[in-house]
């Protein structure tokens, strides 16, 4: 087809409702950088964008901005919600107290240092639980159970959300030696496992581990856990203790 025959299909193409064979013809013209069709489709895309801008104005939550920035590693992620503010305020107050006590005696200094450490640990715990809650409450979270059929299994559930991350909740994990640690893996279909963070189990064999961030659920076959040396590994070096296969999704 020539450009003249295609010109009344530019807008349909831009709206993604052009039919065959015109759709493929327009695409072919664009791929060979046909100037006439490039100009026509560009104008049609402008109009399509303007139609998009007619949607009724709505206001996203303030958290969305922080989530987006956090997902590219921006510093602003540190202020993600009330628990953080509370933790930050408590931390600031603690530091003031620490300075005061530090001037008084070594004993107070040690106490303040210990409290600071505890506050830091609590802040980390709050962050982890906040991430876990976000995954659990995500509207597109997939839930997979594992370990139910084994005689003495590490058992539990894996929750996967495409934009919020992966949450592992496990029980019956064996006690680890001092120089060992658990490592979680995302296993893509037909590709090497990707490290998804290190964690330790509690004394009772339970564990909660979060790997925040985007997950390509469609191309992920399973979530696994292996026991590794303390520094972790780039690829699994032992047989997985946990293997949670994700259901296949539409491509």
């Amino acid at each position, binding site marked *: 087809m020539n450009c003249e025959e295609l010109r*009344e299909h530019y807008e349909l193409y831009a709206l993604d409702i052009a039919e065959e064979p015109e759709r493929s013809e327009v695409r072919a013209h*664009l791929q060979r950088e046909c100037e006439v069709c490039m100009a*026509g489709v560009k104008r049609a895309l402008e109009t399509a964008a303007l139609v998009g*801008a007619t949607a009724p104005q709505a206001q996203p939550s303030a958290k969305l901005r922080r989530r987006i920035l956090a997902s590219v590693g921006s510093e602003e992620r540190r202020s993600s919600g009330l628990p953080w503010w509370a933790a930050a305020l408590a931390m600031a107050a603690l530091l003031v107290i620490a300075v005061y006590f530090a001037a008084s005696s070594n004993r107070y200094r040690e106490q303040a240092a210990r409290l600071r450490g505890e506050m830091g640990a609590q802040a980390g715990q709050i962050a982890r639980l906040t991430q876990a809650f976000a995954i659990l409450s995500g509207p597109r979270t997939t839930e997979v159970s594992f370990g139910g059929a084994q005689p003495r299994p590490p058992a539990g559930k894996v929750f996967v959300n495409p934009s919020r991350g992966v949450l592992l909740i496990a029980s019956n994990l064996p006690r680890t030696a001092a120089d060992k640690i658990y490592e979680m893996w995302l296993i893509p279909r037909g590709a090497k496992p990707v490290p998804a963070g290190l964690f330790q189990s509690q004394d009772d064999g339970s564990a909660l581990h979060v790997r925040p961030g985007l997950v390509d659920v469609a191309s992920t076959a399973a979530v696994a856990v292996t026991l590794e040396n303390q520094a972790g590994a780039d690829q699994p070096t032992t047989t997985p203790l946990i293997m949670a296969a994700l259901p296949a999704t539409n491509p």
Partner: protein
Amino acid sequence: MLPLLMAVIAGPEERALVLRLQRRDPQALAELYDRYGRMAYSLVLRVVRDGAIAEDLVQETFLRVWNRVHSIDSEKGSLGPWLLAIARNRAIDYLRSSAGRERKAVELDETDHAPLYSGMEADILISDQARRVKVAMEKLAPNYRTVMELAYFEGLSQSEMAVQMGQPLGTIKTWVRTALQSLRDELGVVAS
């Protein structure tokens, strides 16, 4: 209203913003969000009608822009229309998968089409044209407006619209053509 005002003010800085995004400056992403976040969210919410899902999809949209901004020409690229196209594609894609509808064989790939967003007005989304399209959409006869909305906000093909509206395919095609002609007339655009 604020994002629109910011867009007006920031229009001439669009090229610099593209360059900063290409240099992986997270603050540039913050500015991009301040400029287009509400508009993208409004569009996606109109499509999926669920605030939590809309926020997830807007997050994916901005990350996609962040990861693919190198495909935009920093000299001429216009981020707004490109970003809205990505947002709309994400939302329609979600809608189609959640409804068990098949995806189209050839999807409008916004990365392949990135060069088409070169040379657009940086502030086209808040220009007089935007206002005129809004007015034109409101003035369309109900059937014409419905087919435009089903196409743009629901991602329905003309055949799917025919089934949903209980009309012959030929009638739907006529309505779509007429609706597009009305928009064209309102914008003073002559079919290329």
